[in-house]
């Protein structure tokens, strides 16, 4: 009988700590020289149309249909757009990379505390976080964190400042969103820095990222939407995020884009959706699907319980995945009931 992972209280802090992303408007040609202006949220009151799928009884009766679609469907929403003289969106955030993945922030399992640090240190020694760091760096370079703002952008440039004198410049369109094969010297520099920080050779790494996306004059841009569950009578149906009057993207949303590196899940080839975000069950929210189910023994907990106690995993990729979840952080204790 193998020993059991005995930690009922077990938590890891996140090691990739993004800030909120702030949205500014500027011009492509003057992006490096002129100051960009913070973008503000605009409240719009619009007269919508009735376009939802109606009941067959209504659909088939022209009179009823007319009566239904004549209703005004007034809506009040937040929106955000570039100014009339601006054609480029600048998204800025900072990213802190920390080491210490071999130390849980809370753990009460004697067996676990005995075996896990050794396993983690062995991983760091062998891999030095190079594979993960390369993928994180690629996601910084390819501008994935622009999310919907990336769609349809003509040109995207990402400028990364790692605290050295020379900022790194990436042409985001040169980097694929589907794989992590591309390489160039600047990407390698960034990769090395991140790998050093994750494996504890640097105390911490703080980088600033400025992504410029040429989206067109006065085009709409997309900050994060706020999750307000039981708001009162207020009739606004879409509330966007802002910090001190600057439209912004949630740090969580940036974090999710940066850790979209999981190409190791079982359905990778069939699903044809490319990498998914590192999550314990491989959850992809917009598909409403979890790609790593305990049934297929591909979920984090199944792998982690074996890995943490020093058992060998089937291949290196599973180890990468487990370590990536620990870099993401979370509460992983198990129920003490059984």
């Amino acid at each position: 009988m193998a020993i059991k992972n005995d930690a009922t209280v077990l938590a890891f802090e996140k090691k990739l700590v993004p800030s909120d992303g702030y949205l500014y408007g500027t011009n492509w040609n003057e992006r490096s020289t002129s100051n960009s202006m913070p973008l503000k949220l605009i409240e719009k009151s619009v007269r919508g149309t009735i376009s939802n799928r109606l009941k067959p009884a209504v659909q088939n009766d022209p009179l009823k249909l007319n009566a239904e679609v004549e209703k005004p469907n007034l809506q009040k929403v937040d929106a955000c757009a570039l100014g009339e003289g601006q054609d480029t969106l600048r998204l800025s955030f900072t990213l802190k990379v920390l080491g210490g993945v071999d130390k849980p922030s809370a753990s009460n399992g004697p067996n676990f505390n005995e075996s896990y640090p050794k396993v983690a240190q062995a991983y760091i020694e062998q891999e030095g976080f190079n594979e993960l760091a390369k993928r994180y760096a690629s996601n910084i370079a390819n501008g994935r964190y622009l999310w919907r703002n990336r769609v349809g952008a003509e040109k995207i440039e990402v400028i990364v400042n790692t605290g050295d004198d020379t900022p790194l410049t990436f042409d985001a369109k040169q980097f694929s969103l589907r794989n992590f094969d591309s390489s160039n010297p600047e990407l390698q520099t960034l990769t090395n820095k991140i790998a050093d920080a994750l494996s504890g050779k640097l105390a911490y790494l703080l980088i600033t990222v400025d992504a410029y996306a040429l989206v067109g004059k006065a085009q709409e841009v997309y900050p994060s939407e706020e999750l307000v569950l039981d708001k009162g009578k207020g009739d606004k149906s879409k509330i966007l995020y802002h910090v001190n009057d600057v439209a912004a993207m949630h740090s969580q949303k940036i974090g999710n884009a940066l850790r979209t590196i999981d190409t190791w899940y079982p359905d990778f080839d069939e699903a044809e959706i490319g990498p998914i975000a590192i999550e314990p069950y491989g959850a992809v929210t917009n598909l409403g699907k979890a790609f790593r189910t305990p049934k297929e023994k591909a979920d984090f907990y199944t792998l982690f319980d074996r890995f943490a106690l020093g058992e060998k995993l089937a291949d290196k990729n599973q180890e990468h995945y487990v370590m990536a979840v620990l870099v993401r952080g979370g509460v992983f204790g198990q129920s003490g009931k059984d």
Partner: protein
Amino acid sequence: MRRFLLLPHIKIHNANAMSSPYTIGFPAMTAWLGAVHALQRHLHQHGLRDVQLTGVAVSCHQFDLQTYKGSGDFVHSIVGTANPLDKDGSRPAFIEEARCHLEVSLLVEYQGLDSDDLDQFNNEVNTQLLRMKFAGGDVLSAKPVETLAVDEDNDQDIKKVITKLMLGHVLIERRDLMMQTMQEEGKDALDALLDHLKVMHRASQDDDGKVTWTSARKTTGWLVPIATGFQGISELGTAKHQRDTQTPHRFAESVVTLGEFVMPYRIKALDDMLWQYRVDAEQNLYLCQTLTTSNILGD
């Protein structure tokens, strides 16, 4: 001579905004003392074994509570976060957690530092600061730390320290108000607390029959309910699956009292704003309180 370490303008985001089990707002005092205690433990592990971080003052420069109130809404609602999907791809329940973004400066009193170690001390704190969490929130940036020596008899010295905490509000303890109300009016603790927090609207009529309304609290000042520690409600012992097997465990409930936010320039004595841990083993109390309160209570 008292010695202080100033941690200036720490920008924190997504910190836990539970200021007591019943209220949201500024993070509880236990969070700040806890973070400083964590810092002390880090320093002990890195060679500065005799350093004691004995008291903490918190000055809040900016506070952004993640709530939303639309036009015409009567209440604020918490801005939530979504949890990742369950293993079968279904959406888990929303958990409402109050969060805030804030910028604070901490003034920490320290003892037991050899002046030769001052550089190492500063470096360690500067590095560690960015790797820490405060009230569960991430540190985004912080200005370099400073060490200050303060002669308490010298008003100029005190002023200098206090200027460093401007522009902001420091949290001080107003347990005295609670005790006063409880003693003078014979109220229980919860009534005394609510007495000071509720806003009373009063109408008065002048000779012409004109009615004017005034709204006021019992006492002036920016009073807030805060959690300042724990009351043990069970015997010391061991519980199944407790977090730390080496330390005895005990169930506890929060102690809530009044605090007040004041501008630092109104602080006359540093002890008014410096918070310390205090354990009252006889009454099973584990508290954070300001030195002034300790003195009033005669501990």
